[in-house]
């Protein structure tokens, strides 16, 4: 069996679990961290699917800039979702 396919399966499963956790989490900063972990798993998937161009833009935007923007916004509103 191709090791790439196994890694794709593992990373997509990790991505899926953390998407689920981000959706059910009520504490918003925690949810943003879960979402960033999901993005890191997706970046690995893009690399395995041979799209390095997407990896280079996806990593800084989804792990760095997007959570940072969300943290700034959470800081200006409420921390816990009701």
């Amino acid at each position: 069996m191709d090791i790439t396919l196994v890694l794709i399966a593992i990373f997509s499963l990790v991505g899926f679990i953390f998407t689920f956790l981000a959706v059910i989490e009520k504490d918003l900063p925690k949810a943003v961290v879960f979402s960033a972990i999901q993005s890191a798993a997706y970046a690995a998937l893009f690399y395995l699917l041979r799209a390095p161009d997407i990896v280079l833009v996806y990593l800084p935007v989804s792990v760095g800039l997007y959570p940072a923007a969300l943290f700034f916004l959470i800081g200006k509103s409420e921390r816990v979702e009701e």
Partner: protein
Amino acid sequence: MRRSYIVLISLISVIFVLAYLTTYMGILGPISSDTRYLAKLFLALTYNPDTSTSLRYLTAMSPEAVTAIVWDYRGIDTFYETTVFFMAIVSALTIYRGITNIESKTQGSGLSIIVRVVTKLLIPMNIAIAVSIAVHGHLTPGGGFQAGAALAVISVLLAVVFSGYSFGKLGMGISKAVALRSMGLLGIATVTLLPLIYGIVAGVQTYLMQNYMKVDSPFTFPIYAWGQLISGTLIWLNLAEFLAVSFGFFVIFMLLSLREETVKKYLGVGDGH
């Protein structure tokens, strides 16, 4: 909590069943492992220095097929993408209108000394990687937007680790960042319009955003500089997009890191609103 675990496990089982059905049972038809015809065409044409055949009129003279498609074959597409990003930043600037520079205060010193020293070491590496992604955009994976996003991470690091006032200390104001971003956009406009100006002056047919010569147009951007492959328009467009995107993100994070009282003072909005 237990209910959500049941939901998670059932969703994962559905994914496994779907994956099994599509790969082993073939419900979506057979999966082809061959490279598609269109991909083969792009890979054959993207870098083709052979001047003996008529295929040279279809080349972008860049070994990086993605950048060739993004800035040459589908150049107008990327131009509109840049326009969308431009509009987003213009809207942010409109909301925060009147704020031109961030005052540098000693107040708000940021995170602990360990984090600050590590970040100080990381920032030069980040700049080097971003510039490398931009200037090698036509040779290796990457390009202007990727490099811009990589450099924009510095703005987040500065705002979080050294507090929002660090931009002022470094002499990086909002108006300066806007000026650098506008320089990037002007660069894209210049590269787009240069073939047109050449066509009017020399009296030949040219196309907007033209990179390499076409059957009915002899215009070509310089493909090599000092013996190095620069792929005509691609390196200039990548560098201009790098400036536009990175300083666009800088503007956004500078505005987001402002304290609410500062924003209210500039906008003339009281607490009652």
